[in-house]
């Protein structure tokens, strides 16, 4: 039936089942090759953004989704060199780094529309007036998205991704408790015995509590340093800085390697402050105790630790974003192979002001217009006499709702956020198209 419907509009590019399948796989493969570099670039940048984002500074200045903050975010995104694919992990990094989700969603929306290739192609193929309209629309759609995401997040209709689930508590009383935990394999060349280890663990938990208090912690929750090796498990627990830490377990003989776990929870400090304290104190105590780590030069200095954390976060983002990527590229292949180009131009060539823009948006959403593809089709539409608003809508919506990028967004932010993003983009693209029609034609 679909084939008959499509034939009414034009000839599908292929009708033989094997040829169709090979065509779909070939397009899917090309899509994968096209997507991967941007995905990799995006996850690396996203990982570093998440780790090095100035959370404390930003959370002080951007505490709510006001018009000013949304506009600022949208403008930054519109000038950022990220596109529909790379903006997803970068947005993830911003959200994980502590930026409010509506503000991060603004970045996602505006940056996805204004990828560098899209800007060059829109300016080059459609002209400067279209480019200006394209840019301004992207910024305004970003602001609109910010309000919409804020509204839906506050009402619990969408879930904020990367918000620490442990914090999404149950009880507002939980607020204010931060936590740092670290596990690393450590070694002692000469081996470490029970008393040496206990002394090291005692010094570690005491020093950690002193540092936390010195940096302004209001209350120490629990500090635990635990060494687990073949020779036994020893742990030191401190809850009250005034009391001697509790020691548990013994080490039978000397141990040369083992896993050291350090957990720190306190009220009044940020997670990042606690991590920094952990690394600094651990580094000092290990030096004194003649202990080392496999990667101690990297791990036991704050910058090295953060670089490693950034790469770990990148890997996590890559896994999340690529979860539905295969599905996305297959759908992209099906659309590319089975939907004839004539269908698009036939449906959108109308000069009707409202209808042509609506059709344009409805077609642009499932089409794959990343990396300038949207601008190329838009310029063809323009040459075939489509209404300017329909052309602009297609140029805005098609690149940002590429199936592969939507699949990545599904994996990274969940389906509800992905659907909301698509709806806002379609609605925003429609309004931009109508407004552009009125500006130029009425």
């Amino acid at each position, binding site marked *: 039936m679909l084939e008959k419907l499509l034939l009414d509009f034009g000839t599908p590019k292929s009708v033989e089942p094997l040829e169709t399948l090979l065509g779909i796989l070939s397009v899917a493969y090309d899509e994968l090759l096209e997507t991967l570099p941007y995905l990799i670039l995006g996850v690396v940048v996203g990982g570093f953004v998440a780790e090095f984002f100035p959370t404390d500074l930003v959370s002080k200045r951007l505490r709510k989704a006001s018009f000013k903050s949304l506009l600022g975010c949208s403008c930054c995104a519109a000038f950022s060199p990220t596109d529909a694919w790379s903006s997803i992990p970068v947005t993830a990094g911003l959200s994980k780094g502590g930026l409010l989700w509506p503000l991060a969603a603004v970045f996602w929306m505006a940056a996805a529309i204004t990828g560098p290739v899209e800007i060059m192609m829109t300016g080059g193929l459609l002209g400067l007036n279209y480019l200006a309209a394209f840019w301004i629309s992207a910024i305004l759609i970003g602001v609109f998205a910010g309000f919409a995401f804020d509204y839906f997040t506050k009402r619990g209709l969408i879930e904020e991704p990367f918000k620490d689930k*442990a914090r999404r*508590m149950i*009880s507002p009383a939980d607020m204010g408790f931060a936590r740092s935990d670290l*596990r690393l394999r450590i070694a002692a060349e000469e081996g470490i015995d029970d008393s040496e280890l206990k002394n090291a663990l005692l010094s570690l938990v005491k020093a950690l509590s002193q540092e936390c208090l010195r940096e302004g912690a209001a209350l120490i*929750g629990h500090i635990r340093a*635990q060494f687990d090796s073949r020779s036994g*498990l020893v*742990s030191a627990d401190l809850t009250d800085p005034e009391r001697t830490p509790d020691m548990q377990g013994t080490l039978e003989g000397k141990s040369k390697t083992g896993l050291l776990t350090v957990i720190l929870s306190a009220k009044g400090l940020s997670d990042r402050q606690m991590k920094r304290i952990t690394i600094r104190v651990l580094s000092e105590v290990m030096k004194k105790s003649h202990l080392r780590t496999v990667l101690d030069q990297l791990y036991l200095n704050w910058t090295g630790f953060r670089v490693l954390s950034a790469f770990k976060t990148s890997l996590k983002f890559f896994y999340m974003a690529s979860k539905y990527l295969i599905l996305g590229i297959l759908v992209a292949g099906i659309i590319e192979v089975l939907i004839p180009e004539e269908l698009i131009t036939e449906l959108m060539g109308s000069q009707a002001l409202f209808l042509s823009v609506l059709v344009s948006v409805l077609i642009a959403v499932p089409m794959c217009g990343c990396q300038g593809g949207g601008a190329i089709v838009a310029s063809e539409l323009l040459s075939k006499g489509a209404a300017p608003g329909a052309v602009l809508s297609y140029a805005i919506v098609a690149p940002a709702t590429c199936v592969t990028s939507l699949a990545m967004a599904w994996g990274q932010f969940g389906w509800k956020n992905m659907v909301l993003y698509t709806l806002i983009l379609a609605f925003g693209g429609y309004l931009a198209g109508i407004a552009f029609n009125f500006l130029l034609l009425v």
Partner: protein
Amino acid sequence: MKLLVVTGFLGSGKTTLIRTLGKECEKLGKRVAIIVNEAGTTSPSKDILKRDGLNAEDLKGCCICPGTAAKFEKILRRMEKELRPDIFLIEAFGTTTPNAIKTVIESIRGKTQQKLGSLPMVTLIDCSREEPFNKAIELIGAQVREADIVLLNKVDLVTDSQLKNIESRIRKIKPDASLMRTVASEGRGIDRLLDLLN
């Protein structure tokens, strides 16, 4: 299959109590499965429990709360299938309040192979620390109010008057609180819990 949840402020002795209860129940021939909830990415409590030969799994990086009930359910059902335990002991992390866990347990009731019999919700109080009562009273207050049994732990480290002071503070939060004095590390004062479990 019985299920006992232990909540309590950070460092109040939850792992120690779970370890003692687990060992005692196994001595009585019961099969015990333990789920340790950790807020972070590491789970040293599970390592401690495993060292003692107890069957422990962890739920890391999220709370046992309605939004993440599926993760908890998955672990619980897997352990039920593999171990066929008589008793489940659940250790919540230190900033969890009992009501959220009650909601989760209600949501998975009927989804386990064996009938799930919930026991009273337990909250531990570290009697040797007064500071959390002053600086985290909202959290401790919620834990006490929402618990069925309040265990006053580490009573060996305080004097009688200090203990009475703690008790009166708890009575102010919840006048009808069911209080039990314990030293979890020595297994003192946990008889009532053992009776409930066995």
